């Protein structure tokens, strides 16, 4: 399946990328994607995830065409 992966703010700095288009086997969870895209980096605690612009949980399973985003705690406002 084809997945778009996005990283924001400090997680983008850590991974060294802000956006990737990747092909994965079916059935991957959010955390699986992190492990495959950032094998050397542990996911910082407090990190947030969104699938297709909706907040998601680390065990949520991705499907073809999804956009998954990883980002640190929010600091807007």
């Amino acid at each position: 399946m084809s997945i778009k992966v996005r990283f924001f703010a400090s997680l983008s700095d850590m991974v060294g990328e802000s956006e990737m288009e990747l092909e994965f086997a079916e059935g991957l969870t959010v955390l699986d994607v992190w492990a495959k895209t950032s094998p050397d980096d542990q996911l910082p605690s407090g990190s947030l995830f969104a699938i297709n612009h909706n907040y998601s949980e680390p065990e949520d399973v991705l499907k073809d065409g999804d956009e998954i985003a990883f980002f640190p705690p929010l600091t807007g406002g």
Partner: protein
Amino acid sequence: MRIKLVDRLFDPLDEIRATEAELAARRSKIGASSFFVGSMRDFNEGDRVQSMFLEHYPGMTESRLEEIADSAKTKWSLDWVLITHRVGQIHPAEPIVLVATWSGHRAQAFDSCRAIMEQLKSTAPFWKKESLNDGTRWVKNNTAGYSVND
């Protein structure tokens, strides 16, 4: 309601005035309005901050702000909700965010304005990167929005 992300200096009072002009026809039904403006300070965690970059998640940020405003309109009796938020490069003393609510009653205006602001802080994807005298750093966390005494 109106949600705006702006990438340059905006004037919160002009934003409010423009909205009130549109509300003029029903102004005599609106008894209360509550406004909050958050602006950039030139220090944080003991360090002088020269400027700041406000990153966001295009698409998701707007839809989260719309959900927050929609949810407020469901919970409170509101005539109008306005949220304006800066993105991009910003300098000390400049406004970052405006939340404005108009209602028939003051508790509705106060409660909704504050709740929108707290939800924005905790659920709208924005990230601040500060430029200090000796480099840049990402702000780690937002402060709590309610006093200990509340």
